[in-house]
C-alpha cells in the first residue's frame, strides 16, 4: 500500500516561516512596479510630455495595471463576460461619482478613476435615476407653478417619462459611440498617445451626467435666474471633466479639429441640459416687479410673482 502521506496536499507555510527554515533559498518579491510604464502604448517617451504623465495619472500606484491584461477573457455569449463590466465595489462607484463632480485640475478622470476597469453599473443607473428625477421634478415644479390657478387640474404627465428615458439613454450611448468612432478614425491618421476604449467613453459620459440629478431637483425652484445659474454651474463642472478627459486624445491633431471636437462635446452636453429644462419644466410666471415707492399712507405695492 502506498504511503498515504505522500498523497496528501502539502500545506505551504508563511513566507516568513519558510525563509526562517531555509535562509538560503532564493526569494522573489513582487512589489508595486517601481518603474510604471509611462505610456501604455510603449512608444518612446518624448521629453516634452511631462504633463501627459500628470494627465495620465500614473503618479499614483497602479496595482490594477498588473491585472489589466487578465480581464475580460470569457467569450461574449457567457454570463461571466458581462459580469466583468460590473466588477466594482460601492466605494469605487462613489469615488467615480465624486471624481465626475469635482474635477481635479490636471487629472484625467479615466486614468485616475477608471483605470482599465470601466463599469456599466454607474452609467446605467445614473441614467435611470436621472430619467425619473427629471420626470418627477418637472411634474412637481409644474404643480407648484400652477397651484393657485382655478382652471388648473393636476395631471401626472406619465408620457414624459418615456420621452425622458429615450433622450437620456440616447445621449448616454449614441454620443459616446459617435465620439469613439470619430476618435478611432482620427487615430488612424494622427498617432495619439491616449486612446480610449468605447466602454471607457461610455463610462465617462455616464458619470458626467450625475451632476444633473441634484440640478434637476433644484430646478423645482420656480425662478428663471436660479434655473439658469444652475445650468451654467453644472455645465461648468461636468463639462470641464469631459474636456479634461478628451483634450489629451485630440491634442495632437489639427488645431481646428481638436477645438471643434471639444467644442462639440461641450455643446451637446449643454444642449441636453437646456433641452430638458425647456421641455419638462414650464416657465415660471412672469413676475411684474413694480418698484416699491415709499407711499405716504403706508400702503405698499404688491409684487406679483
Amino acid at each position, binding site marked *: 500500500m502506498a504511503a498515504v502521506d505522500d498523497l496528501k496536499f502539502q500545506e505551504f507555510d508563511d513566507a516568513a516561516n519558510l525563509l526562517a527554515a531555509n535562509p538560503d533559498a532564493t526569494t522573489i518579491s513582487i512589489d508595486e512596479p517601481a518603474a510604471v510604464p509611462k505610456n501604455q502604448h510603449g512608444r518612446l517617451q518624448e521629453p516634452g510630455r511631462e504633463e501627459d504623465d500628470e494627465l495620465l495619472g500614473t503618479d499614483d500606484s497602479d496595482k490594477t495595471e498588473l491585472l489589466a491584461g487578465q480581464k475580460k477573457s470569457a467569450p461574449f455569449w457567457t454570463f461571466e463576460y458581462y459580469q466583468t463590466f*460590473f466588477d466594482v465595489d460601492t466605494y469605487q462607484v462613489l469615488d467615480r461619482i465624486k471624481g465626475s463632480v469635482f474635477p481635479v485640475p490636471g487629472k484625467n478622470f479615466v486614468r485616475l478613476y477608471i483605470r482599465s476597469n470601466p463599469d456599466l453599473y454607474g452609467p446605467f*443607473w445614473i441614467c*435611470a435615476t436621472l430619467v*425619473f428625477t427629471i420626470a418627477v421634478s418637472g411634474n412637481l415644479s409644474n404643480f407648484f407653478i400652477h397651484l393657485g390657478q382655478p382652471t388648473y387640474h393636476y*395631471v401626472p404627465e*406619465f408620457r414624459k417619462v418615456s420621452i425622458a428615458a429615450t433622450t437620456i439613454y440616447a445621449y448616454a450611448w449614441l454620443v459616446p459611440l459617435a465620439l469613439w468612432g470619430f476618435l478611432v478614425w482620427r487615430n488612424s491618421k494622427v498617432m495619439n498617445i491616449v486612446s480610449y476604449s468605447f466602454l471607457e467613453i461610455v463610462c465617462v459620459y455616464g458619470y458626467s451626467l450625475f451632476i444633473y440629478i441634484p440640478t434637476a431637483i433644484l430646478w423645482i425652484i420656480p425662478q428663471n435666474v436660479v434655473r439658469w445659474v444652475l445650468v451654467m454651474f453644472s455645465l461648468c463642472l461636468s463639462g470641464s471633466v469631459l474636456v479634461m478627459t478628451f483634450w489629451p486624445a485630440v491634442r495632437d491633431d489639427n488645431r481646428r479639429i481638436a477645438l471643434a471636437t471639444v467644442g462639440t462635446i461641450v455643446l451637446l452636453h449643454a444642449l441636453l441640459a437646456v433641452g430638458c429644462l425647456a421641455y419638462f419644466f414650464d416657465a415660471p410666471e412672469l413676475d411684474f416687479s413694480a418698484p416699491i415707492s415709499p407711499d405716504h399712507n403706508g400702503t405698499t405695492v404688491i409684487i406679483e410673482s
Partner: protein
Amino acid sequence: FAGLADVSISEDIPVEGEITVPVGSRSPDEDYSTLDEPVRDTIMRDLKAVGKKFVHVMYPKKSSALLRDWDLWGPLVLCVSLALMLQGGSADSKDDGGPQFAEVFVIIWFGAVVITLNSKLLGGTISFFQSLCVLGYCILPLTVAMLVCRLVLLAGSGTISFIVRLIVVVAMFGWSTLASTAFLADSQPPNRKALVVYPIFLFYFVISWMILTFTPQ
C-alpha cells in the same frame, strides 16, 4: 498499491441478492400523487403557500419560505390588482394622464427583471426567479397603500386627504424597501450591498410616485 494485488474474489462466494431499493418508511411528500386529489385541495395548497408568503412579507423576518419555495402567483396577483387600480388616472388629453394598465405592468415586471439581472451581474448568489419572487411579493405593502389611497380619495381630494395619502404611501414605501432588503441583502457580496439596494429603492420609489400622483377622473 502493492497490497491490493493480493485481494481477489474467490469463486466460491456466490454473488446474489436483491437489486431493488428497499422502500422504507414512506414520508408523506414522496409518492404523493396529486392526480387523485380533489381540485379544491390543489388550489387551496397553492393559495395557502401564497398567503403564507404574504404574511412573511408583512412581518419580515428571516424565513426561507419566500426564497426556497418561490412562486410567481403572488407577484402576478399583486401586479394585476395594482395596475387595475392605477389605470385610467385623470387625463385632459390622452397624453398627460397617469400610467395605463400596460405601462404599470411593464414597469413592474421589467423593473424587477432589471434589478435581478443587476444583482446577479454584481455577483449575487440568489437565483433569478427567487429574486423576482421576493421583489414581486414586496409590492404587497404598496398595493395596500393604493387601496387606502383610493378609499381616501372617495372621501375627498383636498389637502388633508393628500397629507393622509402621503403619510400612508411613504410608510408603505419604507416597509416594502426594508422587507425586500431584508430578504435579498444576505445573498450579495458584502462590499456591494449598497449597489444592489439602491435600484430596489428606486424601483419602489417610482411605484410609490405613481400611487401618490393618482388622481381620479
